[in-house]
């Protein structure tokens, strides 16, 4: 059994169908666990009182917004370099969920900023670069939707994704490079975490739940894209008859 077997859309369609329930259920269970930590195990913060609980959504959503973009850029690069059809389909399948998490990061950031900074929004480096990320997602999705020729659309969208990838390190390091209102990173690989272990645990559980959710919905989406593009093939016709 060869790993490249699953680079074929026909085989991947079947594999993805088997994996989706696993990812969905584990995402759901971890989300419940994460919410339990967020509201019942994590103590009240001595500075921010209960408002800080937004962190359990805000930080995982912000991480996802950047990770998903990088994964999309990765698939786009593979697709452009090797002309593998499935890579482009994966890139397309990830974009809407990436846009959703970017919106959630901005939305929860506004709801957190208002009580803590006194403003829903400020044009500082972190917030502005995250807003640009949302525009990138929306622009890439619109570009894909606008080009009828699938192959040309794939290439154009992936090229835009790759160019836009420069924004991800800008978001990440913005709190270091500029003086911003936004606080620094909550987690740093080089330092011991500066927050209570239970808060860290809650954030990580929610982040893993978000990852599993993202994988589940992108697999559902990629299966639809595969079926649509492979509709002329015998295997796709056979599947359509069965489903």
């Amino acid at each position, binding site marked *: 059994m060869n790993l490249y077997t699953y680079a074929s859309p026909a085989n991947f369609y079947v594999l993805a169908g088997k994996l989706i329930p696993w990812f969905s259920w584990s995402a759901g269970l971890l989300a419940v666990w994460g919410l339990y930590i967020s509201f*019942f195990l994590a103590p009240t913060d001595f500075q921010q009182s*209960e*408002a800080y609980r937004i962190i359990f959504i805000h930080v995982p959503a912000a991480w996802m917004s950047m990770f998903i973009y990088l994964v999309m850029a990765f698939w786009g690069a593979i697709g452009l370099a090797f002309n593998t059809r499935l890579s482009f389909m994966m890139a397309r399948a990830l974009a809407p969920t990436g846009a*959703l998490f970017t919106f*959630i990061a901005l939305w*929860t950031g506004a709801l957190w900023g208002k009580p803590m900074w006194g403003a829903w929004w400020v044009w500082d480096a972190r917030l502005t670069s995250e807003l640009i990320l949302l525009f990138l997602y929306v622009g890439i999705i619109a570009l894909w939707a606008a080009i009828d020729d699938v192959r040309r659309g794939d290439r154009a969208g992936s090229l835009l994704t790759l160019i836009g990838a420069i924004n991800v390190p800008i978001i990440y390091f913005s709190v270091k490079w500029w003086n911003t209102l936004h606080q620094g990173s909550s987690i740093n690989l080089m330092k011991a975490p500066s927050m209570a272990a239970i808060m860290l645990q809650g954030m990580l559980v929610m982040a893993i739940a978000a990852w599993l959710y993202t994988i589940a*919905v992108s697999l559902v989406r990629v299966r639809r894209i595969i*079926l649509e593009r492979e509709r002329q093939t015998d295997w796709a*016709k056979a599947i*359509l008859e069965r489903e």
Partner: protein
Amino acid sequence: MEWASWSDFWHMAGYGLYVWGSFGVTAAGILIEVILLKRAGADTRRRLKRMQQWALSPEGEER
């Protein structure tokens, strides 16, 4: 346990609007994505099936 009562829990020490506004909109966004995804999947499969049946029908064959 952090909360003396349910009303305490919903009140969130005065930050209820912000905390529930965050968690609520996130839940709504995820729910909407899942619903749209299900609907789009069903629509695509229905459309592809119809195209396939048409291709197999006598009118489709003639073309």
